[in-house]
């Protein structure tokens, strides 16, 4: 039932606001709203019960194993939430001057410094509000860099065909043409194809390493030399930083500009689709172009740098200073892990992924890149299963819901047929991984014995399989009183 269907004319929640007399005195009648908006009229209990009930119709990390590849669904420590929501931080107005928020700014400044440390970049801006905004900022900086040198002929961004869809979309938003680079049989960038693609039109290459195929790009140094040799810059998509945190720094791999997804590697909550945060890091040569604000030092304290400090900035990405509450959560997380904890993230996320890969292979699943180590995630292909039984990756994903696991990412990477991208993260125990393997094994047996059972899944969720084609055909995007 929708909240609107619980509505009764004249019913009210508990909030009452005293209104001084005088009312809407100053607003001309022609500017006033004729009819009130169609918001629900419910009591506070109605609303609390309704939304609590809805929450129970979700899978989440707090309730279920959530091995959604490429999303790093690790446990979100509650301390991070509690300490970011201290009343003084919540009440801070973004327009309040720096002298009224030195404690708050100290956290953000130290976060910049810690991100520099783990990425090996010279300078960081916390401004981007999600990974895709970080990508936009990064590519815009690449463009600003070339423009600043009068190098205006570079109009192409190279993107591997295995890349996240955000990469080509971000490049286009920055006014670039996108050229795709193929992947070789081992999951590496096809270096020969890259060599023939680069040239005077190359502005840069966007690369995720480890890649979206769940393997480390072994030729990264050579790739960097090819791109730099052609005058282009190297962009690091930090979606998979979790796999190498504390073990390899993007700066050491030769990247000029990077973004980091704090909602992945640094465990800020995904919130049902956000908010995230996508800080960008750069080499010294690109630092003048960073998006604003950057937190700078001022004597013993801190202040927000602006256009007077950074005249070459690409500009601003949001009205204020970015997703500050997300940044505070990441700050608390990093301080709780410390230097040694950073490396443990890579160690145990990689251990969990390789263990899960070995056990699934043992259970009869086909691994997409069997000759390679898993990073923090790996790809299973169900092509053979589909050919034999008709059961697809989507069917297996839906059947996993019945077994109490959120599904892995399905049909991405698109290069691998019937793919499941599985990322267990370091916060899951061996028992949870073993239970997942057992569930996958059961599904495999069900697919052979009774494929319709799997194809009809899910059966145990509040609703059965939903008709996505109908949703797109008969658009129903808002509730209207019937």
């Amino acid at each position, binding site marked *: 039932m929708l909240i609107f269907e619980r509505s009764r004319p004249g019913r009210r929640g508990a909030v009452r606001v005293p209104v001084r007399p005088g009312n809407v005195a100053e607003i001309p009648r022609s500017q006033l709203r004729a009819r009130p908006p169609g918001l629900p009229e419910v009591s506070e209990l109605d609303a609390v019960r309704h939304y609590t009930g809805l929450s129970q119709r979700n899978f989440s990390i707090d309730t279920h194993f959530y091995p959604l590849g490429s999303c790093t669904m690790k446990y979100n420590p509650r301390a991070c939430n509690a300490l970011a929501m201290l009343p003084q931080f919540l009440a801070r107005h973004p327009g309040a001057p720096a002298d009224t928020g030195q404690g708050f700014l100290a956290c953000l400044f130290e976060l910049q410094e810690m991100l520099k440390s783990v990425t090996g970049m010279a300078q960081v801006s916390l401004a981007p509000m999600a990974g895709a905004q970080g990508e936009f900022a990064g590519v815009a900086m690449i463009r600003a860099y070339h423009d600043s040198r009068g190098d205006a002929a570079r109009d192409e961004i190279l993107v591997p065909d295995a890349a996240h869809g955000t990469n080509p979309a971000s490049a286009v938003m920055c006014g670039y043409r996108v050229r795709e680079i193929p992947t070789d049989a081992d999951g590496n960038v096809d270096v020969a194809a890259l060599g023939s693609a680069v040239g005077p039109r190359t502005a840069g290459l966007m690369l995720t390493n480890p890649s979206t195929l769940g393997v480390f790009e072994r030729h990264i140094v050579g790739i960097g030399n090819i791109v730099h040799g052609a005058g282009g810059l190297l962009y690091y998509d930090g979606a998979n930083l979790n796999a190498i945190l504390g073990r390899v720094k993007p700066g050491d791999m030769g990247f000029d500009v990077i973004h980091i997804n704090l909602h992945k590697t640094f465990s800020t909550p995904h*919130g049902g689709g956000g908010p995230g945060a996508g800080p960008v890091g750069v080499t010294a040569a690109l630092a003048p172009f960073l998006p604003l604000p950057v937190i700078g030092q001022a004597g013993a304290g801190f202040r927000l740098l602006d256009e007077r400090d950074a005249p070459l900035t690409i500009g601003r990405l949001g009205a204020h200073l*970015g997703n500050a509450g997300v940044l505070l959560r990441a700050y608390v997380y990093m301080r709780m892990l410390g230097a040694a904890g950073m490396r443990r993230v890579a160690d145990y996320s990689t251990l969990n992924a390789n263990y899960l890969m070995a056990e699934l292979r043992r259970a009869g699943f086909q691994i997409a890149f069997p000759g390679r180590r898993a990073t923090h995630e790996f790809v299973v292909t169900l092509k053979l299963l589909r050919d034999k039984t008709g059961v697809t990756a989507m069917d297996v994903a839906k059947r996993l819901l019945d077994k109490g696991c959120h599904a892995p990412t399905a049909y991405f990477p698109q290069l691998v047929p019937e793919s499941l991208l599985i990322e267990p993260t370091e916060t899951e125990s061996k028992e949870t991984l073993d239970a997942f393997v057992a569930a996958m094994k059961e599904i495999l047996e069900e697919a052979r014995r009774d494929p319709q059972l799997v194809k009809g899944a899910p059966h145990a969720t509040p609703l059965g399989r939903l008709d996505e084609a109908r949703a797109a055909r008969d658009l129903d995007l808002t509730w209207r009183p019937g």
Partner: protein
Amino acid sequence: MPFIPHTEDDTRAMLAAIGVAAIDDLFDEIPRGLRADALAGMPPALSEMEIARLMHERAARDGTWLNFIGAGAYEHHIPAAVWQIATRGEFYSAYTPYQAEASQGTLQVLYEYQSMMASLTALDVSNASLYDGASALAEAVLMAVRAHKSSRRVLVPRTVHPSWRKVARTIVRNQGIELLEIPFDPGTGATALEALGRFRGSEPAAVVIPQPNFFGVLEPVDELADWAHANGALAIAAVNPTALALLKPPGEWGPQGADIAVGDGQPLGVPLAGGGPYLGFMTCRKDLVRQMPGRIVGATRDRDGRRGYVLTLQAREQHIRRAKATSNICTNQGLMTTAATLYLALLGPAGLAEVARACHANTLALAARLTRIRGVARAFSGAIFHEVVLRLPVPVAPVLRALREHRILGGCDLEQDYPELGHALLVCATETRTGDDIARYGAELERVIGLPPRSAAEPGG
């Protein structure tokens, strides 16, 4: 090990199952020269108790302030239920609802949110959020240019929030889109209709119409929307959602209504929090929905004919269309959307209108009190909603500094963004400011400015 559950036995058994001797071996594909040593600059770990102490100390050092700043972010009362429910793990720790059957909670919240925002703006459809109001405006500009097809010029009044204009410029600049500024009438503080004539031949793709504008002043929205349509342009409304409880919604501006509405949803239950996370909202006419950026939720049926919700029209999005997507946005501001939905449900139409009326009345009371001070006057004659520009007899920055010594945040200094206004200060009093708060501000400002009070016989500002 914090947040890592492995016992030594677990690790040993797992390594054996993989067939390696040590965790280090799992990284053997990484070229040796790339392997990092210790992380210089990364401090040692703190326990939860230690970090809690540090954060409490820092929060206490920042303290609390009596706030009269608005300027795009507004201090409203947030019912306790909003964040108690929004931070339930089932909402807090889920992700984008790709698996619809395991995400009906999030999906239904988004569908309800879309319905509420469409109704608030009187437009047909809504997306499931963008990052903030400023980036939503930039996306609306891109969307209008896509829809218009032949023009890459958009008119933006100088009365739009200066940061929003900067953000729009940053985001659209690389696509060869030109943003032209429309001046404002120095008397009323609203966009100068008579200045529109000079843009008649410019064939704009869209006209941005703020309501209320950055000065708090109400714009002639009917005339502006009408002018846009008469000149072949789309009308983009940039609105404050609280104000829409009282003000004519964008869908009813002029004979045709605005085509796209955007704004910052922060006033709807999202704390100020130093600047974010907030949420950008966007609604539009039905026929523009395929040009919309971001996630959209639609109702459908399950196998047994029961109503349910899914992400829809995904062919617009980057994960399907890649370089041809309407935007690069992926992760949006989901949890903030959940909070906004809860807020609107808890307030209802009567509660939201009460908040809007209280903000309006409090700001008028604040303006009345402060303009009793000699040399302080309202800068514009235009009607306002819940912010007002005051002209001071002295430079603003030192005044605000002096007020901070009394723990008062006195407003937003406009001298840098609008030097033509002289010593101009933008102030705001939401429903959270009491009569005592306003009296305290009045008394302190009077003392800081230091002129003798105006006698009863002198005309007020």
